[in-house]
């Protein structure tokens, strides 16, 4: 029984900026519903008293001291940009005002 509609798949694809063909939408809707069904099964497990896991490694408090270190020379990364001018990255305008 499908839990995700094709519209929801389209929405998620849009959030991730993925352009999907009709065939891909169909296939992914099926795949995602299979995955959801698996998780539904997992959720039947009794987890009373078990704390939620946010991280898989048993580790905490890894910090660095507040010491500045050299940055990359600008040319090195601007060279890789799809578009750059003067000292700036150049992107299509997305106006927020």
């Amino acid at each position, binding site marked *: 029984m499908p839990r995700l509609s094709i519209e929801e798949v389209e929405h998620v694809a849009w*959030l991730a*900026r993925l352009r999907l063909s009709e065939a891909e939408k169909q296939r992914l809707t099926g795949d995602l519903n299979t995955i959801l069904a698996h998780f539904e099964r997992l959720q039947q497990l009794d987890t009373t008293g078990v704390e939620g896991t*946010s*991280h*898989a*490694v048993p*580790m*905490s*408090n*890894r*910090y*660095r*001291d*507040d*010491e*500045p*270190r*050299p*940055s*990359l020379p*600008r040319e090195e*990364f*601007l060279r890789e940009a799809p*578009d750059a*001018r*003067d*000292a*700036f*990255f*150049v*992107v*299509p*305008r*997305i*106006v*927020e*005002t």
Partner: protein
Amino acid sequence: MATLFAKVETVLGMEVHAELLTQSKMFCGCSTQFGAPPNSQCCPVCLGLPGSLPVPNRAAVEHVLRTALALNCRINWRSIFHRKNYFYPDLPKAYQISQYDVPIGVDGYLDVRLDGEVKRIRIRRVHLEEDTGKLFHIEAATSFVDYNRSGVPLMEVVSEPDIYSAEEARAYLRALRLVLVWIGASDGKMEQGSLRCEPNISIRPAGTTELGTKVELKNLNSFQSVYQGVAYEVERQTQALARGEELVQETRRWDEERLITAPMRTKEYAHDYRYFPEPDLVPLEFDAPWIERLRAGLPELPEARYARYVRDYGLSEYEASLLIERDQPQVSDFFDAALRAYGGDPKRVSNWMQSDFLRLFNAAGEDWPAVKVRPEHLAAMLKLQDKGQISGKIAKEVFEVMWTTGKPPEQIVQERGLQVIGTEEDLAPIIDQVLAQHPAVVESIRKGEEGKFNFLVGQVMRATRGKADPGLVNRMLRERIAG
């Protein structure tokens, strides 16, 4: 702006973002220096290049902990970072590392002083995140991006909707800013964008408890624009409701030129951020020794100092504010130290601080490191005056020399020969000479023109360059005039 529709009340919550005062960025070693050439402070981590991994800056975490403590928050012993996902060119990773359901501090409050009353505003949360890059819209079809700011440690302080007017919003921001500056978490420079404020504003019929439609306001770069922007928005919403219009939940931008708010095209990227725990960063875990060490390092905060000055020292709110409401807590530290060394009337020390100290301090551009005078020297100078060894006028001169040279007052008095002329023997020739020069004045006083007496006192003070003991001068003149 007066409103015709008095039967509504305003409810505001404030989101304040502060860039934290660190040398390096939140998750990499790039410098945070403001005003550097574009894209000169970037590396694979803050550019979001594949394969790079973030490592948190301990100093930034401690700034947030200290802020949370200063704002009376409960610290979550275990706190984690989340990814907030959205696409926008100021965000090279396509997500911002932020905090979601387990921020560092929760459930605090800040006491805010307004018109002689103290108002408690609850703090919902204090969390840590990273700042975004800066976009420049210079051309029609493109934007220019500078990622120097990308990854600068950023703290968000969110209040509960406990603020009910534009005045309160401004007072809250002032009080919060002062705390952040005093504890060294932020430089508080609103004009440089290191402190940014986004109120959300709604109105509702007075006496009801349900919140109305919220409007978020952006682009408020000064205390004045916070006040004006909120006042404008309250008026706009009130009038819209009075006309029977429906308000929409939206983000509006304060236009500083036209003094209005206008809706922002916030795109459809709406609030579907798909937060999930940041897998590249392990949890933050705090323990009592760490927290208590930070708590012990906090200075006395402005509000506590206010209460002490007003309650214990009898200063007026205004006098207290002149000492406290400054980016340099050193000014009121100085007052406290001088008062301790002096041990006398707090008002007397406060008066000197407000007249002479602050006049010179303000004139010198409020540059604390340049201040040479020491609190114990002010105390010693007041004692010299109390003992009658210098006059009030000379004290002012001594203070100015202490200000410019940092020398102790005794030495200044000695070097410049400023001791009061306090014996009859020393004063007698000067007084006799003044009387001899003004026989007509003496005659008028004898006939009852009492007003002319001060003229003679003035002449003696002038002849002694202000060094004569005024009490003694008075007595000796009286004796001689009475004949």
